[in-house]
């Protein structure tokens, strides 16, 4: 089953065309890594797929539901408000700089949406929160505030927050770019654990060896286009495209 489907997605910021027609599919249980140079459109792609940035044209489906579609007359329609809320409940996004709510404890960061959006009881929300904290190796941090955690711990809280509502697919926008190598390890270990559980994930990353080890498939993007894609180990070890080769040579 396809959990993410994008067809010929185009996005421009004023004059600048950032996505020049991206088509991509992600199946259930698949881990896809997106790599490429800065400014190549990776983050924009993720932002378009997660509704943070509106696209100019193309088709995006999440979990089988149409998020946005360009009809035969060239008019682009987004799903109505109600469907949009439903579609948003199907995926989670982990940000590069965490975006935790600083005034909430770790527990409240994770449970607030469960209680006030998904209308779960406080007990139920706390149970989900405790499970996730154990999974993230943060079982003693429920009452801490984000400012008292290391960057790696904060990122693991934000992964827990994104997982709380039980999404079908999880997006990561350079989840370790704000972390030093030591802290990066803990976060990557958590993501690897999710991959082992067959969580469907799309990960924008600069960690090449991590992408090779964890992803099933890697997409190399540059200049707003998918330049090359293929099975992870093959693309990293044996890239075909010249542009991919020269990019990977830098690592």
């Amino acid at each position: 089953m396809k959990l993410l489907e994008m067809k010929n997605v185009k996005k421009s910021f004023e004059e600048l065309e950032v996505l020049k027609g991206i088509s991509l599919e992600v199946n259930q249980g698949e881990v896809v890594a997106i790599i490429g140079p800065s400014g190549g459109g990776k983050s924009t792609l993720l932002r378009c797929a997660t509704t943070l940035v509106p696209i100019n044209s193309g088709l995006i489906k999440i979990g089988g539901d149409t998020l946005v579609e360009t009809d035969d007359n060239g008019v682009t329609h987004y799903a109505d408000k109600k469907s949009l809320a439903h579609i948003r409940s199907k995926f989670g996004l982990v940000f590069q700089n965490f975006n935790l709510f600083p005034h909430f404890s770790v527990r409240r960061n994770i449970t607030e949406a469960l209680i006030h959006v998904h209308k779960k009881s406080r007990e139920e929300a706390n149970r989900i929160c405790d499970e996730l904290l154990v999974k993230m190796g943060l079982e003693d941090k429920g009452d801490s505030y984000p400012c008292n955690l290391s960057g790696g711990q904060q990122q693991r809280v934000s992964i827990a927050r994104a997982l709380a509502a039980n999404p079908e697919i999880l997006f990561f926008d350079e989840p370790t770019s704000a972390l030093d190598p030591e802290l990066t390890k803990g976060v990557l270990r958590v993501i690897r654990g999710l991959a082992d559980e067959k969580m469907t994930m799309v990960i924008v990353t600069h960690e090449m060896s991590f992408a090779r080890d964890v992803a099933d498939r890697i997409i190399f993007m540059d200049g707003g286009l998918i330049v090359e894609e293929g099975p992870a180990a093959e693309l990293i070890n044996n890239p075909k495209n010249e542009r991919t080769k020269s990019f990977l040579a830098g690592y």
Partner: protein
Amino acid sequence: MHNISSTLSQLGAGLKFTLIIFIFTLLFSIPLGLLVAKGRMSKNKIISGIIRIYISVMRGTPLMLQLMVVYFAPNFIFGIQLRDLTIGDVDYRLTATIIGFSINYAAYFAEIFRGGIQSIPQGQYHAAQLLGFSGAQTFFRIVLPQVVKNVLPAVTNEIITLVKDTSLAQVLAITEMFTAAKGQAASQVSIMPLVMAGVFYYIMNGIIEIVMNRAEKKLSYYN
């Protein structure tokens, strides 16, 4: 010879009006300021333009003049006789004073709140949106609590200024504390009533400083 008990009872009577003006102005101007800040940030150019002019006039003209304009407006516009006018049981002079103070302070608060709201990173909105929070939930649960912390020092400034500004109500012949002190100083031919009024203002602001410091401390559990 300075009569302390007469001064105290007169200052006490004046203090009542000072407190009424102070409390009601805060009560009205803070929510109004939040609304004005929202309007000032509106994407609608007409709304934000009107609000911009409103703030500019409120900040750019004397509060004393604004009080007089509010007071005389019903007469100018509708020809209503202002002498002995009451609304409910309240003397219109007091109502006009509170309206004048409220719309003036709302303009200042609005700019403070706008700064506070705009200092919240875009990422907070994105995270809230993707977690499914509605616009209202995002504002009241995520944004506003952080704004409160950010604006507290600036709001304390305004509140302290308001305590002293209440003396401007004398322009509408309201016998607040400063007017009372002036009257006593004249009749007793002594500067002591004015000194005592100064001490009263200072004590009020001392209390405000303590309360606001505590509030800041309470919110310092995160940064």
